[in-house]
């Protein structure tokens, strides 16, 4: 039941957005022009693309996504610890330092291998 208000706001917000996007098809004028429907490339003729976006992306983005998962999981583990830290006391402190150190090893490795560099 706690989540019902969020659902209500979701229905309102998303409904408003979908309504606006739909109404745009009706309210605007329609003047056909072949060049208008090409992809925008600063006035140059668009290069032909087999799939949308050419199907290929630089690998660095995948790497960032993987690292995000690593640290996101670390974050998610830190939250419950932070809530109960006072009850866990010294034991919790030692454990969390060990945990952060473990992730820090992976982090140092990635840094060393240049996984965090962009060029």
């Amino acid at each position: 039941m706690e989540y019902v208000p969020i659902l209500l706001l979701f229905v309102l917000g998303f409904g408003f957005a979908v309504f606006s996007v739909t109404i745009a098809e009706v309210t605007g004028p329609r003047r056909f022009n072949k060049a208008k429907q090409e992809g925008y490339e600063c006035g140059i003729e668009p290069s032909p693309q087999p799939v949308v976006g050419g199907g290929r992306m630089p690998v660095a983005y995948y790497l960032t996504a993987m690292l995000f998962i690593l640290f996101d999981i670390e974050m998610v583990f830190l939250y419950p610890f932070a809530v109960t830290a006072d009850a866990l006391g010294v034991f919790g402190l030692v454990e969390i330092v060990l945990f952060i150190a473990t992730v820090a090893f992976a982090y140092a490795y990635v840094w060393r291998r240049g996984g965090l560099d962009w060029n």
Partner: protein
Amino acid sequence: MSARELIANDPTWLSLVKAVLVFALLLVITILLIWFERRVLGRMQQRPGPNRVGPFGLLQTVADALKLAFKEDIRPKLADNWVYFLAPAISAGAAFLAFSVIPLGGQVNLFGYQTSLQLADMPVSLLVVLACSSVGVYGIVLGGWSSGSPYPLLGALRSAAQVISYEIAMGLSFVAVILFAGSLSTGDIVDAQGQGGVWYAFLLPVSFVIYVISMVGETNRAPFDLAEAESELIGGYHTEYSSIKFAMFFLGEYVNMVTVSAVATTLFLGGWHAPFWLGGVGGGVLNTGWWPLLWFLLKVVFMLFIFVWLRGALPRMRYDQFMKLGWKVLVPVNLVWIVAVVAVRTMRNTGVGTAQLLTIIGIVVVVVLAIVLLLPNRPAASDVEEVPVTGGDHPLPPLDLEVPKVPKRKPVAAAPAPELSAEEEGVPDGRA
């Protein structure tokens, strides 16, 4: 009763009323924010800003939105129809969601019900905030991908990498706050900062600074607006969007700004509590009834002003510098800070006195300094980027190539040149 219990007692119709109020509030704030940004930016650049539509130009945003509604809705040939259609809706819709767990005020009487000025609260409210901000990325990525055009795709990729990178820094900066509040519920966090508590911005300054930096990165705002860098990517992920669809992306961005400002207010600036020098006025009357809404809005406006200020003052960062700041500065500083905060707090709880604590901190600082000083200096990295001079299929000219000087020639004396063309006339010394 705590805010959570009060909210749990809300009948569904009251929740609906609150949802409509929050939705309307967000729309109004967004409309005013865009005006506010343009006016303040105008002042910072020594020009008046929009001042024609309505008093002080207040209705400028409404006029712009109406104009956009009647513009042609262009859909590129290569676009993926459904995704292209849905992406702006996802972007705007998801932006509204995170605001549902923000406490706008304390206990009030709303239509005869004692309730709290907050749409929803639960033991995991902060996770809801993070989840909603993650969903917003989908709108941007799908919008860029579905446009079927290179610039939007690049903008979307950048944006995705940027938002998830800064989400790490953002999420980690929450940890110290959770530690002190002992709860993930936004209502509890605000309560912990009221009544004798200290605002966490003062108690945990490092977390606050990291949050403020990462919230700018998270919302794709200047100086971190690399996803829509005009000079490189035209408009970024919304290059191909027009009419209301573009307006939806715009709306999503500004609602996101309001939301992250509200989160900053809730977590670090004491939420809806009156500023501490006003907290004692009239026996705390300024913290009851509808007063809190005023303090909350003032604090949000303050955070929004920081956004505008940054945009007016700083140039856009380069992408590699930006990612370096996120991954190599914010994340490690955050982790060290978390460990330090946990260690100090645990020692305090186990009965270590202030003098002992200061001694321990001193020893740690000295040891760290000693290690840093004793580490051998690495040879300075040479700045010259290595470029292969030979190898490969193409012959490369030597990099230290000097362009030989043009040898001086004597001007041809009085040589008649009847066929001198217009181009050659401008060349001095008769070099032509």
